[in-house]
């Protein structure tokens, strides 16, 4: 309980820090909102050139993009800032964090909680609402549950990807923006129907890394469509499982990373 209050105090401190630059905060909030809108706009522009791309219509594509966007913005708000780990390691913030009586990860996330990204959640939620309206969906209890679970599970998945790619910095401080190939790259990948991609690239991103289960497979289940790539219908319901596996991998990697930091101190 006391610990929770400590974390809440950290988040509160960050909120007061950012609003002390009021004008900047407002601009950052608006631009963040804009960037999420732009992601959706890109899908809109590409899919409105023709009736269907890779067999998917504009409304169907919007549903996939919306699910992806909800999962990503949620994860990006909660843990996206962990990709600043490189800076923390270099500036010694990591040392300061380790001498405090709270978990390192909790402190790093809450100390820098990106309130400017809050409005993004609203944008992606409204796009999802639009997607649900423009698609003629046949609602069943299972689909309602799926709709609720998918963004959360997707967020856990993206959060894990954020942690995994940020943890790289423990071994490789100069990893630059390598991590964004998987975080932002993952967001781009999941914004489109998987059949758009092909070959080994599709196999790696969709199935080996699991990005196919963030938005595409659940969207198929919501739409009641068969997967043109042949995965069975239940594949739309395994997102939570994929998320748990990813989270376990992320936790293991983070712990190994902290151990590595403790043995090298760099």
């Amino acid at each position, binding site marked *: 309980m006391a610990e929770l209050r400590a974390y809440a105090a950290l988040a509160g401190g960050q909120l007061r820090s950012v609003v002390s*630059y009021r004008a900047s905060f407002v601009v950052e909030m608006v631009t963040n909102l804009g960037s999420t809108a732009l992601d959706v706009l890109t899908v809109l522009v*590409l899919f409105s*050139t*023709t009736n269907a*791309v890779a067999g998917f219509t504009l409304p169907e594509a919007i549903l996939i993009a919306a699910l992806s966007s909800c999962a990503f913005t949620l994860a990006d708000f909660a843990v996206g800032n962990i990709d600043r780990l490189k800076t923390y390691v270099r500036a010694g913030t990591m040392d300061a964090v380790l001498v405090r009586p709270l978990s390192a990860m909790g402190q790093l996330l809450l100390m820098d909680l990106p309130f400017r990204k809050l409005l993004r959640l609203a944008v992606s939620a409204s796009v999802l609402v639009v997607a649900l309206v423009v698609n003629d969906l046949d609602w069943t209890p299972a689909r309602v549950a799926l709709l609720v679970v998918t963004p959360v599970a997707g967020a856990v998945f993206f959060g894990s990807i954020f942690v995994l790619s940020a943890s790289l910095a423990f071994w490789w401080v100069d990893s630059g*923006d*390598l991590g964004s190939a998987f975080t932002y790259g993952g967001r781009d990948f999941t914004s489109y129907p998987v059949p758009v991609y092909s070959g080994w690239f599709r196999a790696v991103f969709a199935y080996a890394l699991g990005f196919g289960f963030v938005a595409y497979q659940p969207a198929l289940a919501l739409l009641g469509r068969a997967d043109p790539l042949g995965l069975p219908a239940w594949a739309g319901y395994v997102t939570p499982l994929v998320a748990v596996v990813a989270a376990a991998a992320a936790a293991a990697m983070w712990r190994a990373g902290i151990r590595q930091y403790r043995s090298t101190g760099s």
Partner: protein
Amino acid sequence: MDRLDARVLTISPSSPFRESVTTFGALAWSGFRRYATYRQATIAGSFTNVVFGFLRCYVLLAVAAAVAGGRPGGYDATQLATYVWVGQGLLSVVALWGWTELADRIRTGDVAADLLRPVPPVTSYLAADLGRAGHGMLTRFGPPLVVGLIFFPLYVPARWYTVPLFAVSVVLAVVASFACRFLVNATAYWLHDARGPIMLWMLSAGVLAGLYFPLRLLPDWLTVTLWVATPFPGLLQTPLDVLVERDGPALQVALVALQAVHCAVLLAVCAAVQRRAERKLVVQGG
């Protein structure tokens, strides 16, 4: 425009032109050297460029396959693939994002030191940026292009002058990108905290330069307005359109000429802004 040349105040009787070229070259070389030290980040960055290359290429090819006639925005599949892969390589040459040096120097007050130098700040920052771009061209341009060549059929230019014209267009894109970034950073002279304008720039630059999708996919009136009224398409899309010969010879050359006009205007604005900022610094002491 007289503040734009790299003239060094010198009493040496030797040719002032040669002196300024030497100074400019030395500054550019320093920009090059500075980026050459981040070797690992260069490798990591190229990897990321390649991943995004695959993502964007597959999406655009899927669109091309679905569009009747297979030419969305007037590009065929090989042109689109080339657009994407060369675009990924050019991205770090024109460097739309991630330059906050001037804003940081203004915030910390270090910018005052720039005024002590005998070279006008716009010139010295431009030189350093050209050096940086040169380094980007040597290290970051190639990898995505090679990967693209291995995995996708790319477009081979048919006109003899396309490649040289592309080179000119790239240089103009770098200069225009620099000028835009300079102006965005320079808002810190008046705002103290340029994070807002910098974010706004980062947001608009990517999409308006044609990174996420070729701007030709937009309605014609919008495309033309963007091209003529803003420098954005000149930052990335123009060089790419020139290379894949999207337009007839006349328009191809005209687009580069338009880039040149934008560059001249932008640099003049940079110089004017810098003059105002210096006056503010001198009069108000920052």
